[in-house]
């Protein structure tokens, strides 16, 4: 996963659009989005409600198909692929973390994590090994046999992250992964993402909260279905609330934003 050339573009979109036709009205959920995301980048996507963040994520995750424009994933144009090829990409290239976890309620954590491996055709022994390993990464090695209703919200989201990781995807997509969690648990989850990023994982994350976005290297802001800024730098005023959160969970760290914020712009792995 640690690519030799970290400047490789893994995602390139050009004039990506998505229209929803609602009777006589047409909603331009995406109105021409041009984005380039490099391997090993950690990007936050922000913007007001209804600005098209989820729509964009669904396009990137090949869950939905664009109305127009181009999307190149790992050098492969995606917009013309058929159902089965898209399924393959969702399975191998993309790990998706949802706001609402989306775990199978009757299945154990282990089985939930095994799902993508099932569709990848991995043998059951290997599936078990890989799923257990992924749960180990998110520190749930001791909760493998628990069902979702026997886990806390944060634990559920960590199971979902393990599931997203288990097939070694090229990108990890997360649409408001902490939206349903309290702030302490959110920090826990953000730490997981940070560790993954340190190990070379490309991450794209939608969030409403600046302190969450502050963990990322770069923020893309969407407004009305268009990119309004590609900030390579995270503005200082965003960093302040972020440092406060971190300080709250790690009181030993001195109250200095530049030290307590673990990731700073341009400080790629």
């Amino acid at each position, binding site marked *: 996963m640690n690519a030799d050339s970290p400047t490789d573009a893994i995602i390139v979109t050009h004039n990506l659009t998505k229209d929803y036709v609602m009777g006589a009205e047409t909603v331009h959920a995406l109105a021409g989005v041009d984005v380039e995301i490099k391997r090993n980048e950690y990007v936050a996507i922000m913007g007001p409600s209804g600005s098209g963040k989820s729509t964009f994520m669904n396009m990137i995750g090949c869950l*939905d198909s664009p109305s127009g424009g181009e999307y190149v994933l790992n050098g492969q144009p995606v917009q013309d692929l058929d159902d089965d090829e898209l*399924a393959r990409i969702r*399975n191998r290239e993309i790990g998706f973390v949802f706001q609402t976890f989306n775990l199978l309620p009757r299945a154990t954590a282990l089985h939930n994590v095994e799902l*993508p491996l099932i*569709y990848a055709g991995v043998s059951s022994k290997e599936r078990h090994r890989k799923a257990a390993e992924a749960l180990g990464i998110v520190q749930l090695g001791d909760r493998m046999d628990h069902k979702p209703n026997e886990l806390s919200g944060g634990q559920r989201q960590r199971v979902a992250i393990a599931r997203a990781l288990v097939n070694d995807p090229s990108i990890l997509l997360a649409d408001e992964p902490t939206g349903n969690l309290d702030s302490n648990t959110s920090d826990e989850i953000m730490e997981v993402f940070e560790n993954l990023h340190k190990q070379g994982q490309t991450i794209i994350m939608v969030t409403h909260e600046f302190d969450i976005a502050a963990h990322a290297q770069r923020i893309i802001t969407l407004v009305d279905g268009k990119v309004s800024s590609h900030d390579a730098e995270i503005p200082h005023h965003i960093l302040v609330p972020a440092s406060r959160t971190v300080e709250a969970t790690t009181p030993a760290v001195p109250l200095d934003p530049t030290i307590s914020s673990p990731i700073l712009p341009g400080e790629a792995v």
Partner: protein
Amino acid sequence: MHFWEGIRLSLQQIWAQKLKSFFSLLGIIIGITFLIAVITMVEGMDRYVKEDFAGSLFGVNTFTVIRRQQVTTGRTDEAERRRQRRNRELRMHDVEVVLEAAAGARNIAYSASSGGEVRYGQNSRRNIRIIGGSADYEAVQGWKVETGRGLTAIDDKQALQVAVIGSVIAERLFPTTSPLDKRIRANGYRFRVVGVLETQGGFTGNIRDASILIPFSSFQRTVAERRQEVDQIQVKVNEAEEMAPLMVSVEGALRRDRRLRPGEPNDFHLQTSNDLLSAWETINKILLIALPALVGISLVVGGIVIMNIMLLSVSDRTREIGLRKSLGAKRKDILFQFLTEASTLSIVGAILGIGAGFGLAKLVELFSPLPASLSVGAILSAVVLGLGVGIASGFYPAYRASKLDPIEALRSE
């Protein structure tokens, strides 16, 4: 493979809602119960009729000359029955004709019988059969003697008042002592017991086990009270192929002897176990035609119920389908998952049906002489039918599930 996984999950779901599953599967269960119960009973009856009933009544490889037809197949009309009632009774003279015409047969026996009662001291039994049989009677009937001896040609020639008695009678008259050499009274006439027949048991055995066999000549002198009639003349051959030519020869000889003109019907009847078997075949055919209709209707109903359940399950689990697709499930994976579920459901129904059907047949066995024989073929056809219903009724719901758009499915509800 996620095949086993699918089966395991469906079973879990069925188990989690046992009562609901049971009612949903009722159609299939009833259909398969029908199928198994009827096939099991028909097969049991078939074996019973062919091996046991027909054989013990008429003997294997045996044909019988009688005055008129006993078993009718429903094809014999009333006029024919009336005509046969005028048939001449059989006499010793006919026996001689048959003996000559069927000289190549293995055994020829003739007999007459009458109802009656036996008595020994204080012990007695009513409603028994007293059979007067010629020397070969036991051999033709396939009867075996348990203790003592059977009847011989000398017994018959000298019209000795000796008897071989059935096991039920032996038990009744001689609960503590040996019956051999004891003098019993049958319809008032004295007979010396020389042998006891092996117990046959079962439905047809009731007749034999409660019979006494005496020499034909003694029968005519005593129990028959000067009645001259011979009830039946039985001819037994070694191989089935020998039957037809011998029957032709016996028929011809009797017709010549009775001076019947060509074209005139026989005034006697030649009976083989075929009469009974063909009557049975008719019943059998009707059952086997009616059965698929009954089973078909219940299975169609069962299939519709399963289709409904699967449609409900697909709409209940739209989110799950969306999730699976978002994790990389292809259309065929989803199709397969729901087909597996529908098939598992219907196979469980089929298995319950097999159990219930066999139970039903066993119950019938308990209260009737019909043996319940569950054949591999019946089980196989039940399972195949169950699977067929599952796939047929699961296909449309599964197809709908597989066509769902991942993001719309995920967003649902």
